[in-house]
């Protein structure tokens, strides 16, 4: 068989299958194994799944992950739209720079971001100092750090560039003359947004939402290092089960349950977005 360009897919596919799919398949296998004296024994047991099904903690944590993902998606979408639309109005020469400015915080690394926010939100951090200095508060705000607020804020911070980028790319492709036509026909700027811009940037919003959801639902470090007591995550539990407790079957089951749940929610999200008016027509043409 002659070598064709499409055959290049093979090594890549093998790498992905070996690196991603195989480990997941192994998780499935492990979830049916038994554990004895810190030793993993191949078996076909439903013990782990049984424990998972009856454990409220586990499902609570999975629910938390979903909530985290959905909330972050929502916040980034609400914040991201104005930013993305503002970016479309920049002069073209400024746009290249804008992309760099937008993406640089992403490059800084997970730990740097966590670290920096800890400084900003701490009792003697920037926010508290400024607010006290302005006389708006007397005591430092405790809820800023090591709370659900922190998790929400930093997750939004981490994922905002992805959402902005996704919406922006879509918004750039909207013909400006359509906005003019809408205004010509009597649409105020608000109408023009909801009736023209929003439907036409749906593909971007969908891509951004799926991305942000996937990234934020699976976050482990930010919640655990900045969330304090509310920072428990499903993945942290999996880590614990994997390492300290050495209950690999349960760890696998939990991880798989989390993954499956995230997948279902993401599909539902995608389905919902696609069902919105005219989305199919726009995507068909894109």
């Amino acid at each position, binding site marked *: 068989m002659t070598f064709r360009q499409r055959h290049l897919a093979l090594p890549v596919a093998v790498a992905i299958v070996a690196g991603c799919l195989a480990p997941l398949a192994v998780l499935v296998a492990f979830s049916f194994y038994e554990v004895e004296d810190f030793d993993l024994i191949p078996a076909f047991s439903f013990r782990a799944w049984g424990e998972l099904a009856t454990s409220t903690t586990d499902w609570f944590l999975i629910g938390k992950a979903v909530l985290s993902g959905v909330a972050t998606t929502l916040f980034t979408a609400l914040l991201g739209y104005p930013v993305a639309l503002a970016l479309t109005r920049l002069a073209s020469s400024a746009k290249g720079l804008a992309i760099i400015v937008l993406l640089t915080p992403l490059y800084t690394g997970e730990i740097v971001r966590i670290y920096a926010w800890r400084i900003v939100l701490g009792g003697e951090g920037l926010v508290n100092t400024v607010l006290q200095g302005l006389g708006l508060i007397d005591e430092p705000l405790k809820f800023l750090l090591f709370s659900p607020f922190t998790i929400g804020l930093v997750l939004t911070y981490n994922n905002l560039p992805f959402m902005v980028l996704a919406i922006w790319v879509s918004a750039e492709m909207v*013909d400006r*003359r*359509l906005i*003019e*036509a*809408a*205004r*010509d*026909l*009597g*649409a*105020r700027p608000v*109408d023009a947004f909801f*009736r*023209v811009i929003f*439907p*036409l940037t749906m593909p971007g919003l969908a891509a951004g939402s799926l991305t942000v959801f996937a990234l934020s639902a699976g976050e482990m470090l930010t919640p655990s290092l900045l969330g304090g007591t509310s920072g428990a995550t499903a993945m942290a539990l999996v880590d614990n089960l994997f390492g300290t407790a050495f209950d690999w079957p349960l760890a696998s089951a939990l991880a798989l349950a989390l993954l499956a749940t995230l997948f279902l929610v993401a599909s539902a999200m995608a389905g919902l977005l696609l069902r919105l*008016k*005219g*989305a199919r*027509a*726009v995507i*068909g*043409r894109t």
Partner: protein
Amino acid sequence: MEKRTEPALSPLLLAMRGVVKTFGRSTAVDGIDLDVPERAFLTLLGPSGCGKTTVLRMIAGFETPDSGDMRLDNTPLVDVPPERRPVNTVFQSYALFPHLTVNENVAFSLKLRGGVPDMAARVRRALDAVHMADFGDRYPHQLSGGQQQRVAVARAIIAEPRLLLLDEPLSALDRKMRGHLQIELKALQRRLGIAFVYVTHDQEEAFALSDVVVVMNKGRIAQKADPQTIYSRPADSFVADFIGNSTLVEGRVRERLGDMATIDTPLGNVTAPVADGLVAGDLAVLVIRPELLSAHGEGTAMLTGTVSNCVFQGERSMIEADVAGVSLRFAAEAPYSIGSTVPLWLDAGRSFITRVAA
């Protein structure tokens, strides 16, 4: 060409006075005065860059004049955003909303006001007016260019604007479709009784459709008149050159007597009707339309030319013949060979002496 009359004493719908618009260092519109009467079909005609589209966009509200006055129904238009003007636009690129069906596109302006009682009926009427009623459930990308254009027109007229603006709506279509839609648009305008302001660079289109043609050049109005007048009495050499295939011959006015004057040109002295304001001694241009030159006539020919170019066009040929350094264009029934001599008769009484354009 049939003679057209100006719309008689119609009330003024739109009045622009001294309107100026600059972009950076270039002046797009340089102080124009424009009147659009009710029910008129007025066309802004000129080459690209002459400012006609800018004028249109100022009427629509997408550009704000730097100075000057604009009134619609005697109400000043300054500070009125596009969405609140009773003016609608048919865009060159149609600008149909890709995520809405034809029906929804047309109903757009009505839906913005929360819908009206007989909306479906009105949508249907608007689509009927442009013969697109059967396409209501299609999406724009499923329509051809001509069909999209019609939907764009329906969408613009449904809100019953006082004034309809059309920005080179037919320029993206092929010749045949353009011809059909020109007829449809003219008929539609007559039926609706709405004033149309039409922008085009196609002189034939302008003449076919309009009651009034406004020829623009470099941000200024060169001439504002009915098509027949523009054709037979162009205001300056720019207008004369833009319209049709005329030959322009430069010369100097020798003397003027009432409406006629004699101009001294390389072809000799020619006596012809003259534009207002030209007096003896002025530099001027003699406009010779091709149909005023003929290779046949009575008596001895006034001019003798050497054929320099011949373009065969089927039932006739366009000939260029050199006479005393001037290249004269005329039509002949049969082609001539390059280099041959041809006698020429000029109907000077129907030519025109006009001023040199700035």
